[in-house]
């Protein structure tokens, strides 16, 4: 899960480490001028959602080399759990203008959804993937596809095949003015919350004992096991965190779009997976980067009137990257085996 830095001389290293931030700043600058502030903020918000989902893909792939096909549907289930908690448990119907109440509701919503989805994710791992840990590679992948179909149908059974509205707690009217256009506070909140979660994850992986266990397990499972790492526990925690983040993405999706549907997971899941591949699968920073990139591509496509082709462009990108640069933009620890 660490970025591989191949440059050796100190000047080269400095340049190498600056290459990425410079690239990002340049990219953001260009997108801002091309897209205009409204679309730019749109893309950032969508990117935050993709990035949160992509993190789950990349973490699970990093640790057990499984393309967790059901992850997109975990995100979808998260959006429904958030909807259910928000409208049924908390009794929300629409925007809340009372600031302390709003803050409290949103906080409870995030905490509960993340908790529920973390448990769901860990359960899926325990029931569907762990028994197959020593099986041929494709067996858990096929199981994951099955889990994905089951999740979709369970949700369809309970909530129906139509689009379901989700209460948008943050009032849409609240906005700030940036150089002549109004930027909704909602977007700023969504982006900030997602980025905060990503930083928390990065800190967790790099600083804590469990984070270290996750990194060693992803490098060499058997060796980590010999060093006293509880592999099953570590893998389960990876699923807990990945699914929790997908749950958070579900909350964000609901707050931002105000709706969800049972088939949300497939397309956005595939896009988030593309994001993970784009960034370098197994690389958490890469997944976040990839998420934003994909969103910019999609928003850019629709801004220029090719919105219908957005999906095709993203999937073509996925195919191209897998074929020509399977290690992604930032490189991945397992890319050499692709």
């Amino acid at each position, binding site marked *: 899960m660490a970025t591989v830095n191949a440059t050796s001389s100190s000047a080269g290293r400095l340049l190498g480490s600056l290459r990425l931030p410079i690239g990002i700043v340049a990219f953001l600058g260009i997108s801002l001028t091309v897209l205009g502030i409204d679309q730019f903020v749109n893309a950032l918000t969508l990117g935050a959602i993709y990035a949160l989902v992509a993190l789950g893909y990349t973490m699970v792939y990093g640790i057990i080399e499984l393309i967790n096909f059901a992850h997109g549907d975990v995100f979808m289930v998260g959006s429904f759990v958030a909807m259910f908690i928000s409208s049924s448990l908390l009794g929300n119907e629409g925007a809340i203008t009372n600031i302390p109440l709003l803050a409290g509701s949103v906080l409870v919503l995030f905490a509960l959804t993340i908790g529920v989805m973390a448990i769901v994710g860990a359960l899926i791992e325990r029931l569907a993937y762990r028994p197959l840990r020593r099986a041929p590679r494709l067996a858990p992948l096929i199981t994951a596809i099955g889990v994905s179909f089951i999740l979709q149908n369970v949700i369809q059974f309970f909530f129906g095949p139509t689009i379901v509205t989700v209460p948008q707690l943050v009032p849409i009217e609240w906005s700030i003015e940036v150089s002549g256009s109004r930027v909704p506070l909602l977007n700023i909140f969504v982006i900030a919350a997602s980025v905060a979660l990503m930083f928390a994850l990065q800190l967790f992986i790099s600083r804590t004992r469990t984070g270290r266990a996750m990194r060693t397990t992803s490098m060499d499972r058997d060796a980590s096991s010999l060093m006293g790492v509880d592999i099953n526990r570590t893998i389960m925690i990876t699923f807990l965190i990945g699914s929790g983040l997908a749950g958070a993405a579900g909350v964000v999706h609901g707050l931002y779009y105000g709706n969800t549907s049972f088939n949300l997971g497939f397309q956005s899941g595939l896009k988030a997976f593309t994001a993970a591949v784009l960034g370098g699968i197994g690389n958490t920073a890469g997944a976040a980067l990839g998420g934003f990139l994909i969103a910019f591509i999609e928003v850019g496509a629709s801004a220029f009137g090719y919105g219908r082709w957005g999906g095709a462009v993203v*999937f073509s990108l996925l195919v191209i990257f897998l074929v020509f640069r399977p290690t992604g933009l930032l490189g991945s620890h397992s890319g050499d085996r692709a």
Partner: protein
Amino acid sequence: MSRIVDAVNAPFAPVRAYFRKHRSFGIFVGVVLLSVALPLLTRVPPFDGIQSTNAWVNAFTTAAIYAMLAMGLNVVIGFAGLLDLGYAAFFALGGYTYALAASPFSGIHLPFWPMLLAGGIVGAIFGVLLGAPTLRLRGDYLAIVTLGFGEIVPITLMNADKFTDGVNGIGGIDKPSIPGILQFTLINPWPMYGLVVVLFTLIMIMIYRLEDSRLGRTWDAIREDELAAESSGVNTVIAKLQAFAVGASIAGIVGVVNAAKITIVTPDQFRFAVSISALAAVVLGGMGNTIGVATGAFIIYLFQSILLKQLNTLVENFNIPILNQVDFLEFQYVLYGIVLVLMMLKRPQGIFPARRRMREFAPLKIGKGGLK
């Protein structure tokens, strides 16, 4: 017990020995017998009460189309060990090939029979086009790339409305005919049934012969251990491409037949769920076992389109609350999911395992390998 079985089997021993020697003829006899027996069976209770014989024959035709699709996918997954999640794309390409060649939309009306071949060729070409750059990838990456391709094709068909009429699809596709002898119609399901039976027999014979050919053994070697196969002088890329091309051309041919049968193609008919339904049939029947896979497809199809429909009418008749509003037909997708998960967890070799695969799916003790 086994003595009784032996005693019953004894008179059939020469028959069996004969068909073991002449397998293609055996398949022909078997399919013909089955294709006569199935319609007869629908005249007997309880099957005659479910729907008319014509409706049954129609259902069998669709089931056979689905089974051919599964057999084609089995060449890619079961023989060569490559997980193809975008198989429906080739099915779609075959269907659209015929739709464009024989419908009022394009204004061209080519005869059906050569198009059958054309569908196969179009499928094979796209199979090679997709396979050539991607087959170097490791198994799970290949799965995702094929899935991406499987999504791109319907999106393209949907958006290129100038050539495909977008979401509406292409309707009014010509029915096949044998000039002067037989005109296929929507009302009479029998000619299509006959056509599908013939095609089914040919495809099954071809696949069995392929399995035992040099190419089939090459696929075995690649599936079991690609590195070892490569070091033994097998050109793995070519062999994998051939698997892709064979699978894709079968899907293309079947796509043409399917388009001619239902006389309309729309992008929505070829979504991801179609690829997964074929995968479910392969997994249920047992990867690598052609007859098993065809049987798996029949089981799944009859289950979802007959049993679930029956469940709907049953619940309606008894007026059971809550369940009344549930459309059980929607549960076909959960059926695929359950089949995939349960089979992988409990019986990964399928209900009718291919003999070689039994050992392969036994838990690996040392290292990785096998199905990649």
